[in-house]
């Protein structure tokens, strides 16, 4: 930018061919024309050749009946649903594993990252080993480790391991009782939302009061009381509408209850563990990036170590942490496509099956690319907003 401004101040001399502005525009236009021509040529070539090879093309196939079943679906799906819905099921599965994976990876990553800076030798070394192990193994192997090494060696359904609260663990997955919400349970949800809203309001008021008068207020315990207490009250008032459906043994599997399949479990654990190793390093770098003088100055002001971390170090570290954290979130989302190796029906798997059943390879791949691109762009957009809020406000 700066150099352009400097150039602009000089009056253009001689032929316009030597004018840097004209040249700049010319070359930009040239690149644009080449790009458009290239895209056009590729598109044209694909269409012409698909026609020549008598392969049907276009996206009309998405309305056809899928005809195959999918093991895990968050929305209603059967073999009578359309191909579009099958791809949608896969997309939602990808989003589910990405979101819970990102949350878990972030939690593990922060714990391990801070652990690496601990004064306790054992904690520090355990965290170092964790990071070095998971960071240096390809994610696919981590997935196989969980799938074939941990979950596949669990006992068969007939000899399930009994866990507390009517839960079971076997090689078909983790089963736990499903909550059956009876009549009037909407009241509980309303109470929960009300509790959260009130807790937020109380916290705000308490902060304002502390700013104004210096008197603290037990925000934490009040919030807990509101968020837990209100729904409990509503539960009692509406006549205890909650019951549980317990998993039971049948001829083949456990039926009833809620099942978390080993495919999801191993993918989720693998992605979380793998990405957490990178996040830990990012967090460590972020904390190290805050100069020791800040901590010392805060200590000199009389803050306790917890408050120093919470009020002084972490807010500054976050500015360093968030941009590379975004890349890790994107990596996790994209790595979820490795699910295909263990049969978790994510976007790549279902779109791949659709691609194969219909033979629409080009369209199928285009859909997959577009969806992953959109997913990544949305993730970065969200993280950019977070980053903007965290950024140093310069006055």
């Amino acid at each position: 930018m700066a150099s352009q401004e400097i150039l602009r101040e000089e009056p253009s001399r001689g032929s316009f061919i030597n004018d840097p502005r004209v040249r700049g525009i010319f070359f930009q236009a040239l690149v644009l024309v080449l790009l458009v021509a290239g895209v056009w040529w590729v598109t044209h070539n694909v269409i012409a050749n698909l026609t020549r090879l008598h392969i049907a093309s276009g996206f009309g196939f998405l309305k056809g009946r899928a005809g195959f079943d999918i093991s895990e679906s968050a929305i209603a799906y059967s073999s009578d649903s359309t191909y579009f819905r099958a791809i949608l099921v896969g997309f939602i599965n990808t989003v589910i594993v990405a979101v819970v994976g990102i949350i878990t990876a972030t939690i593990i990553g922060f714990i391990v990252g801070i652990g690496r800076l601990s004064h306790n030798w054992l904690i520090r070394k355990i965290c170092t080993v964790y990071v070095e192990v998971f960071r240096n193994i390809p994610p696919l192997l981590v997935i196989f480790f969980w799938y074939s090494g941990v979950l596949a060696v669990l006992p068969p359904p007939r000899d399930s391991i009994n866990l507390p609260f009517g839960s079971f663990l076997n090689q078909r997955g983790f089963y736990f009782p499903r909550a059956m919400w009876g009549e009037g349970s909407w009241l509980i949800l309303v109470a929960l939302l009300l509790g959260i809203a009130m807790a937020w309001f109380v916290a705000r008021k308490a902060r304002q009061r502390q700013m104004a008068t210096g008197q603290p207020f037990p925000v934490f315990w009040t919030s807990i009381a509101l968020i837990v207490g209100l729904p409990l009250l509503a539960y009692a008032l509406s006549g205890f509408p909650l019951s549980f459906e317990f998993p039971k043994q049948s001829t083949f599997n456990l039926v009833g209850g809620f099942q978390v399949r080993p495919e999801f479990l191993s993918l989720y654990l693998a992605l979380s563990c793998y990405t957490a190793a990178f996040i830990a390093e990012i967090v460590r770098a972020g904390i190290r990036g805050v100069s020791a003088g800040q901590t010392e100055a805060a200590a000199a002001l009389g803050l306790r170590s917890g408050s120093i971390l919470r009020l002084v170090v972490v807010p500054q570290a976050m500015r360093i942490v968030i941009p590379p954290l975004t890349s890790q979130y994107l990596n996790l989302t994209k790595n979820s496509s490795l699910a295909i190796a263990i049969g978790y029906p994510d976007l790549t798997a279902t779109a791949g099956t659709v691609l194969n059943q219909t033979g629409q390879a080009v369209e199928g791949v285009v859909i997959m690319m577009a969806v992953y691109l959109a997913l990544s762009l949305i993730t970065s957009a969200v993280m950019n907003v977070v980053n903007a809020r965290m950024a140093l406000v310069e006055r």
Partner: protein
Amino acid sequence: MKHIAIGVLGAAAFGFAASAASASTLDDVKAKGFIQCGTNTGLAGFAAPDDKGEWKGIDVDFCRAVAAAVFGDGTKVKFTPLSAKERFTALQSGEVDILSRNTTWTINRDTALGLNFVGVTYYDGQGFMINAKKLPGVNSALQLSGAAVCVQSGTTTELNLADYFKANKMEYNPVVFEKLDEVNAAYDAGRCDVYTTDQSGLYGIRLTLSAPADHVVLPEIISKEPLGPAVRQGDDQWYHIVKWTYFALLQAEELGITQANVDEMKNSDNPEIKRVLGQEADTKIGTDLGVSNDWVVNIVKAVGNYGEMFERNVGSGSPLKIARGINALWTKGGLQYAPPIR
């Protein structure tokens, strides 16, 4: 899968232009000196490497037969192992010249996918296999409601499975993998109760399990699975060569021409045998097709006739011990029938 898919895009962008310019598959094949044959990644009896690393099976032998017809040498063939999901893309994009991978002939594949199936080298049907030791009471597929079923994705099997359970108002949990090895491993590890694929495949897979004797194939056959080789549309000559190679294998069996007696048979007095083996004077039986006149001799020398190929790979001469059944010649009450070679 991914690299194939990317390959298609790449090929779509650049490669197709090249293949459009060149003349025909036969010329391409002759120029490179071998046939690229798409096969299964490993299915006993159809396409699987043996302990010496040599591919064995009906599907690979069929490709050898085509190589023998084209080059007079059954070894001039290279194999590309393909998963169920990769196979059509590989053929469409020109990565393989023939797809001979226990693939079911359907109308959708013949039309929307731009393929041409040449015939049925194996009449099959979909079946179910269970571990009888773990599930002692089960002896019919109609008792399978609630079971976890292992199946390979992107197959007609996957679709038939959904149809069958729906038609019989039963429920099941699909456990779907892309690669055959992954399905086998999952079934062997007990991830699912039932394995479903073509019945011939089940017999082959059973041999590879850790305790083959524990597993039984249930009696029900729930679909028609005519398995056969396919080629790309738009090259009639190549389509005819592959198709008539299949018919020649059947015709040879019908006429009693075997790998052992083919040289004697050349001197036979039977005019039909002489004609088929290209021993008539001024014959154009092979050259019209684009191959040499003794192409049937070459085929039979390389792999034997259809019956020999069957017995060696899946029949009495193999560990699978599958009976000829409907795969017998029409003269013996089966479905295998070749139009006359004349």
